[in-house]
């Protein structure tokens, strides 16, 4: 049995704190978002050129940029949607990134997380962006509608507002169905059904939820991975929902530190990488059980969770790795950035043999 290897192909030190890095779809370029020491924001575009990452564009923005996504744009336009420390949602045309093509004051406080769906041929239906913020709200935006969100999920007045750390789209397999999953600092995970405008499911994993991701956004909900502050991650089988027990899950204590990110391989939904607070990456594989659902004593269908196995791990730094993104085009190519102020391009080998 040959195991995948993680190669740190390129490492680039930066002169600012980088929060997010993302591949530009259908290109050999990636972007980095961050915070200059003087308190302004920055977007940088790098391109792979003969084993080097060349800086090809750099734009300074008034507010530090926390997160970005290409999920809601067309393959041709490839506009970047970002959330900043002031709670603004902006969409930039990277060809001329000086002025945003769309802007909205989305939240009162920092936008912690952003995700998009309906673009790039991923997911049927309208292009939509979801943002989660420290002000406790999760809002869904359509780039065609100015100023107002198309859906808003906020706590009832008087209730404590929980810091929303992460949001993710899923279940977008036809024009109507779509779900948003949000994770909060108190360990709450909430699944909102946008079709019925209802809270479909919620659970608590006891510790702050640092990242949630569906294995695929554009299929009938299959799996959801949620990572937590104390180094555990949970994999939920989303195919069978029991009215009382909810979804079956398996959890794994992986890192000895916070798991900051989880990202599924675009070419194989059962392989995913987690990035940890101690600068390490773990590559996992989910194995399905023989039967994914069974009947309980009341004759209700209840899901059966599978198992996860560790394929490889690699320590890159002593600082947390805060962002991770697989290239949608080249299997095994991946970019990650961490609080050691550097961005790395990684190659993971032999993923096709797993």
């Amino acid at each position, binding site marked *: 049995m040959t195991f995948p290897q993680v190669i740190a192909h390129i490492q680039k030190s930066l002169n600012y704190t980088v929060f997010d890095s993302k591949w530009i779809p259908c290109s050999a370029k990636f972007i980095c978002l961050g915070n200059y020491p003087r308190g302004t924001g920055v977007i940088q575009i790098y391109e792979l050129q003969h084993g080097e990452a060349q800086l090809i564009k750099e734009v300074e923005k008034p507010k530090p940029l926390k997160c970005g996504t290409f999920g809601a744009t067309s393959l041709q336009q490839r506009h970047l949607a970002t959330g900043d420390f002031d709670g603004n949602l902006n969409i930039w045309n990277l060809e001329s990134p000086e002025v945003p093509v769309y802007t909205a004051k989305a939240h009162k406080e920092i936008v912690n997380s952003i995700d998009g769906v309906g673009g790039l041929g991923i997911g049927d239906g309208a292009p939509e962006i979801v943002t989660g913020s420290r002000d406790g709200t999760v809002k869904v935006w359509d780039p065609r509608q100015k100023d107002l969100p198309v859906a*808003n999920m906020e706590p009832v007045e008087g209730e404590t507002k929980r810091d929303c750390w992460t949001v993710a789209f899923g279940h977008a397999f036809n024009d109507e169905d779509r779900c948003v999953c949000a994770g909060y600092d108190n360990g709450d995970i909430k699944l909102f059904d946008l079709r019925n405008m209802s809270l479909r499911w919620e659970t608590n994993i006891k510790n702050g939820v640092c990242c949630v991701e569906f294995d695929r956004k554009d299929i009938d909900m299959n799996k959801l991975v949620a990572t937590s502050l104390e180094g555990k991650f949970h994999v939920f089988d989303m195919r069978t929902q029991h009215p009382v027990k909810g979804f079956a899950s398996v959890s794994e204590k992986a890192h000895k530190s916070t798991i900051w990110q989880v990202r599924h391989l675009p070419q194989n939904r059962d392989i995913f990488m987690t990035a940890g607070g101690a600068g390490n990456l773990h590559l996992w594989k989910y194995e399905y059980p023989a039967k994914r659902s069974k009947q309980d004593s009341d004759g209700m269908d209840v899901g059966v969770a599978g198992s996860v196995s560790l394929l490889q791990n690699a320590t890159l730094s002593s600082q947390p790795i805060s962002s991770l993104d697989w290239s949608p085009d080249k299997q095994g190519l991946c970019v990650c950035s961490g609080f050691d102020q550097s961005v790395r391009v990684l190659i993971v080998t032999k993923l096709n043999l797993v």
Partner: protein
Amino acid sequence: MQPLKTTEPSPFLLNTEHLCLVAIETDDFHSNGLWAAGSPTAYRLTGSENLPVSNTVFIKAMSGGAAHQNPVWDSSRKVPAEHLDYGYIEKCKDVKYLEKILRVLRSGEEGVYSHLTEFCESHLEKLQPKSRALRKETSAATAASFSKDEWSQILQELQTWEEDTKRTDMLLKQDLFDDLVKSKMPPVRGSRCLVSPSQSLFPEARKNPSKRAVPRGYREWDKFDVEKECDNIDGDVLKKDPPAILDTQHPKLKQEADVSSLLSQRQKLLLANREKDKGNEAFRAKDFKEAVTYYSRSLSILPTVGAYNNRAQAEINLSRWHDAMRDCQQVLELDPDNKKALLRRATVHNHMGNVQLASEDLRGVLRQDPYNIAATQLLSKIEEKMSECQLEQEQRSKKIFIEEVEEENSCSMKELQTGLDSPQDLCVLYSNRAACFLKDGNSQDCIQDCTRALELQPFSLKPLLRRAMAYESLEQYRKAYVDYKTVLQIDSSVQAAHDSVNRITRMLIEQDGPEWRQKLPEIPLVPLSAQQHRREEPPSAEVLQARVEKAAREAERRADVLFPALKQEGNDFVKKGQYRDAFGKYTECLKLKPEECSIYTNRALCLLKLERFGEAKQDCDAALRLEPANKKAFYRRALANKGLQDFLACSSDLQEVLQLDPSVQEAQKELEEVTVLLRQSLADGSKEHRRTVLIREVDGDEDTTAVQSNCTGAVSINQKPTSAYDFGQSLNAARCSGNTEACAELLASTSPEQLPRYLSTQLDGHTLSFIMQALDSHLLEKNPNLVYQHLHHLHTADRFTVVQLLQDMDTHHHMTQLFEHLSAVESAEFTKNDVQNLANKYI
């Protein structure tokens, strides 16, 4: 540690540094409780926003040292020093404790013993290979971790991708902007005013009650009655969607992906590949239906060989042979030499019983790739099957060969399980092929294969025996004699060899005279290890005979007891609708008594229900061999043929049934329908592929209820049609029995809007006349409005105008009568004028 260059504290940064702290402190598993209980410290720290950055660095430094300062083990769980010992570790079977020992060893508290640590690791790995304690932190791989070739290959691949993708990138930018893609987009959530008229036909499912896009707060979420809303949605769906759902698989997922035809080829390829990948993933998760759907979507964007091939495999796994066949054909049209497609088509042929075609395809594969293991295996299996069939037909030298074939079957099963790497397996393969050659009369090739097999496995019995037979048939008696003698050395109980040796001895004496032994080649001496029954004295003939008889009686007695029990179990399963289990029981029955006709017909019924039509047909054939006038077998074969879309054979079988017993109304009904289908299929040519038809037949125990079901079957007419097919069935049934009342009930339960669609292909003069009669005699009194509605919609049916042209006097008469009666009725819903207008359309 690299110092942060941030000069200003930002809330987020503090937050993150805090996370870092928490993360590292939880290094100790046992301190989890502290943080799990709501992490109060976390919020205090996060809240102090004015903490200077220097603190951040300080926190980090502390956390960096934390792992060393906090010993993981408290005294109560301490591992005694004497347990850190090779002997103790080797004996220890407690995984948890071993992990503990390992942790102590690694911590170096008791001193550093690198060999002992390694030993402990390897021992733990033996006990529990997936133990978490064995996970070691590794640093990222570098060029040094790979061989020179591997490394350059990795770099090369990346380089090529870089160049390719840059080209794609450039081309994407040059693509023309198409607003059409945008106009096809669904409207913004909750704003329906933007919907253009053409799009409003589209089922709109978003249920935002407000017209404007106003966000919804938690309070509203709370008030939300999910059940009610779901009912509403379901209600909508029920109203809008026709009751007929032809395709039950993944109703929510569209079979075809919506993409603008104006997308460039490149974008289409990207999208098609993405859909295909999703299919592959579903396939890996064994969700074959979903996989088929995604492959279909991929194909609807851009047909590719890969997607067709993969869909074929998924369909094979779903036992949808006809669909799989069609996909294989598609691939082979695009790429006539595609190995995978040939192999898959062979599998399909094999399952559908076309052994000959299957072996042709496999030979095609082997021509391209002689070492294809899967093809070789399947081919040997098929050849086995072919020779078996031949054997049955020819009925010659029954005893020895049938036994042999059975053994070989089990051998080939073994091969399948173990793969083909060992010489034993190859030997078996050669030996099996030799058997085929022998039966074909191709003695030369048989000898060749046997010799090869013997080279791999000297002194194996079967190849020797087969070679001997081949030599004998080539009249090379001396060589045959030697081989037979060798066989007898290995196993002296082979009766066939004894007989042949005697026969050949006589021949050789005749040929060479009394000195014949000297002209023989040397008989090889068989090593003891290869001799099987050497030590046992061969039992005398009487004892042997007695033994055989006793065994046979025993088997018979057992069979007599077991057989009825098994059959009853099978019948019970059929009654419960568990056809797969019933199938297993019947198969066991047949192993006991292969001559029992009713079991074959019962099993055929199960197979029909399981939609395994090819096998069902085979069972009917077997039943008919035993009882050539079994009408049940004919009837089921007809259904099987119908499933296999062989309407001609189907109708001839049905005619056979009717000849045997003209009173079987089910058969009559079926015959009429099949005749229609036959005509249709002839008209459409072979290009139009009909969906396999589900057979609705309720039939319990073969022997007891068969007669009853024959009598009652026709009367039970499905009164709640859900599809055009159901409707057609019910209508036909009613018409055959001339039961206008049933027809009226059927019409009453069908919505008038659906009627033309249900009728479309089946409308003819007789049906029309029959419907008129039914409406007139039964429905008109009860519900004249419905009659009017039906008539109002009926004339929009596809073939109505044609039927109208060809109507006879009788129909005309019925119609005039109906309209006369209708116009006599007083109703709020329609006036006499309306009726007159409608009548003009009909008459």
